């Protein structure tokens, strides 16, 4: 994926987000960069508060007014952040779309599901009611819901079906990039596995580039080819998913992997001691240093910059060498 010569569909460059809060500034996201081509699938993982949702909300231009966004989001080479909301609006939902965390619970209970999926089509594509209805039937079919269910209300859908409908709504205007924020988190395992399969299939069939946000590494591994691990607002490691899971280079990635329960493994699950740092004070040194098992003196003084290898990047003074199994 990294060696594709065609121009990228989406390029995020040095994205930063600061929130203006009562006590000063909160540095939620710092220097996040990644590139997506059509059909690429990138996972962003990390603990609550690491900034992963803020990244995708910034890409959609949906952050509250007290957020200061820096950096660029280039869609087909054009920076959609440059001109504020007016430059973003033509792209939102039509080119870049999003499934929100808890989207399955965000349907209006007194309107039919089909009516709600049709709304973005009528708003953005200026489609007639009949055309919109046809498109809704097509979308529902795509996500595995019988088209006749369009006339039903949200309470008549199971959780998994509401999540499928939320996906249909996000795809309504035919976006090229889909941002999915924890799309399976509140779901039962079987439904979760079905939605993960569906995400994979939709991105293959429609050629949509996918950014999949989750704190659940195994779920991400099931869908994406690459994973970026975020900690305290920064991407601290990025690599192909298989590499990341077998030979993590950053101690935080290794710690996240050790926290995954594996039903048939004898290894005990280990949690990561301590808490992520506060983001309202500048971080000195590496943000993970206070919790890091392989911390050295330099880690407390200098913040590590990204070092790149053939297929990824890591920001750690004590990074495991690339390509060596542990």
């Amino acid at each position, binding site marked *: 994926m990294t060696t594709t010569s065609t121009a990228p569909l989406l390029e995020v460059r040095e994205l930063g987000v600061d929130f203006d809060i009562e006590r000063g500034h909160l540095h939620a996201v710092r220097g996040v960069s990644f590139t997506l081509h059509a059909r690429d699938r990138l996972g962003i993982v990390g*603990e*609550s508060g690491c900034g992963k949702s803020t990244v995708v909300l910034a890409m959609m231009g949906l952050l509250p007014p007290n957020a200061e966004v820096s950096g660029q989001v280039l869609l087909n080479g054009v920076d959609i952040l440059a001109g504020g909301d007016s430059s973003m609006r033509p792209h939102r939902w039509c080119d870049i779309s999003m499934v929100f965390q808890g989207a399955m619970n965000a349907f209006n209970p007194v309107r039919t599901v089909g009516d709600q999926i049709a709304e973005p089509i009528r708003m953005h594509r200026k489609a007639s009611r009949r055309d919109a209805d046809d498109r809704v039937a097509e979308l529902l079919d795509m996500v*595995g819901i019988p088209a006749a269910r369009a006339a039903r209300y949200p309470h008549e859908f*199971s*959780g998994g079906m509401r999540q499928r409908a939320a996906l249909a709504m996000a795809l309504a205007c035919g976006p090229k990039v889909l941002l999915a924020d924890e799309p399976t988190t509140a779901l*039962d*395992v*079987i*439904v*979760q*596995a*079905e939605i*993960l*399969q569906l995400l994979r299939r939709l991105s293959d069939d429609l050629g949509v580039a996918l950014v999949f946000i989750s*704190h*659940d*590494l*195994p*779920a991400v*591994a*099931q869908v994406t080819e690459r994973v970026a691990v975020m900690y305290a607002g920064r991407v601290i490691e990025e690599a192909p*998913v*298989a590499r990341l*899971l077998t030979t993590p280079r950053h101690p935080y990635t290794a*710690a*996240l*992997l050790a*926290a*995954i*329960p*594996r*039903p*048939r493994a004898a290894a*005990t*699950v*280990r*949690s*990561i*001691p301590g*808490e992520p740092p506060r983001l309202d004070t500048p971080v000195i040194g590496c943000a993970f240093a206070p919790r890091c098992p392989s911390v050295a003196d330099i880690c407390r003084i200098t913040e590590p910059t990204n070092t790149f290898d053939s297929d990824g990047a890591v920001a750690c003074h004590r990074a495991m060498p690339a390509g060596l199994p542990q």
Partner: protein
Amino acid sequence: MNAPLLELVDLTVNYPLRGAGIPGRSGRPVVHAVEGVSLTLDPGQIVALVGESGCGKSTVARAIVGLQPATSGQVIFDGTDLTGLRAGALRPYRRAIQLVHQDPYDALDPRMTVRAIVEEGLRIHRVPRGDRDAIVHGALERVGLTPADWVLGRFPHELSGGQRQRVAIASAIALTPRLLVADEPVSMLDVSVRASVLGLIEDLRRDGLAVLLITHDLAGAVTLADRIAVMYFGRIVEEGPVGEVMDFPAHPYTRALLSAIPSPDPAVRTVPDVVPGELPDAVHPPAGCAFTSRCPVAEPRCGEHVPPLRELGSGHRAACVLPVPR
């Protein structure tokens, strides 16, 4: 063998359907939430009750702690059937059985300090005022919130999710219960924190506390529990020692749950072993096995009557009429 600490005998809970039928008349429609659940839990044992949302597992928890009256059947704790007891007689059992809720963000009163939250139960159960401080300190330190003085004056919003869940567990164990009913204690927490809260539950068991762990997370349950009971549509469909159930899952639903756990190996695609289908209607339950609609191996006879739990040896039981693949 010791007498069981908790014994559920044919526990059935129906919820009357609001606004339907005539109150007090027979034939008023009810939701069959829990049907004939029998389960035993020995002192110091961890039993996991696993199932999808809506399967009735939380209703079982509510019936055990007395928040939901049983329609029929018995909840026998330490030899006494709690279902027939009046409030006064029930009081010591309410102390001996403590519930930890799913959502540490909702379960704690935002206007109470940690000290007040943990002390509340002690006040209600008339623990002498002079003893309370030491008990509160002890409970907070037991759950790893050290130094306790640091956390005593804090409000829930000042704590992280993991810390809040620890406060909730502290307020439960402050009453020196013999049974902890933990309803999805980690599903709202980050993966990195889950392991430490599950580890805490394991530690408490070493002190002799019995735990009924209610969860939809089979992978997490397996790492902790001694026995596992799988619920589907209000009934236990399989129950047995964790190793037995994991190695020889006898019910197709258990196999479906196991097949749906996302593999952390991206080369292994997780494909849930179910046919697309819906849960039956809980107001008009089907005559046969409720899993028939999603079961990949269902036969016509599965729809005839509800299969009883059969003994498979080694304390392993399953409710399926089909032969067990070994």
